[in-house]
């Protein structure tokens, strides 16, 4: 099963159960409260997911490590390499 198919199956399952509850498709005669809660669910879920995404990406960008040490180390190694090669006669 590809990821696409997994998603389609999942989304279909959610939508079908939502439709059944909200529009009383199977004549289940559920209490009114269930219908009221279920009706705006897809929109709520989308908005929640949007907020979660923004919060997660924002947090991760804020905590993205900056490695000063690695950069210094690299500069040092470049210098050493240049010196070494210069000694061996290579011209830059």
């Amino acid at each position, binding site marked *: 099963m*590809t*990821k*696409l198919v997994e998603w389609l199956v999942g989304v279909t399952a959610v939508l079908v159960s939502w439709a059944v509850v909200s529009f009383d498709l199977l004549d289940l005669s559920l209490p009114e409260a269930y219908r009221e809660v279920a009706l705006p669910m897809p929109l709520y879920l989308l908005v929640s997911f949007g907020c979660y*995404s923004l919060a*997660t*990406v924002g947090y*991760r*960008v804020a905590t*993205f*490590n*900056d*490695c*000063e*040490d*690695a*950069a210094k*180390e*690299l*500069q040092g*190694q*470049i210098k*050493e*390499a240049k010196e*070494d*090669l210069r000694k061996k006669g290579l011209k*830059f």
Partner: protein
Amino acid sequence: AGNELYAAHVSSCLCFERISLIFLQRLVLKQFSLFCNYCENNCVSVFSPSSSQSLSSESWFLWKQSEGDFDLVSGTRYKGDGGVYGWDLRRKLISRGANFLTQVLLRPGASDLTGSFRLYKRPVLETLVSRCVSKGYVFQMEMIVRARQLSYSVGEVPISFVDRVYGESKLGGNEIVSFVKGLITLFATT
């Protein structure tokens, strides 16, 4: 000149019988020889030459591999004390955003798919390369996704990614478009 001169790179080539590196720095060589024996020449490291990484960190990859007998060890910029240097906010945002999208859509079991430092067991590398169909750096993503598909074990090592000192780093509109295309292809086919 610059990074390509001094740093040890193994460009993604299958034909290496063992980890072979071009050494130009004696001090790096000393650290590495300790681990060569340990690994028994059964692993191949794949380093993309677009980034610079001190050779000493390769020893971390080997150590990690032996620690859990992983089929694949991947360098990650996003976990542990991995990180970047010299990235502005825009670049960090794009990187994290793209990675988040990838995680949601592909659930790959690894935190960094576009990082360029990996260590593979030789037979694993051969199998994966024979199955991959994409080109460019989407190929890197596909390797890990296929590895997950084939139930290979993946270990992770934090890496520090320092921008290249000479030359231009590429992150233009084209790159983003090809990334999205690659992502959708992987989403639909794996």
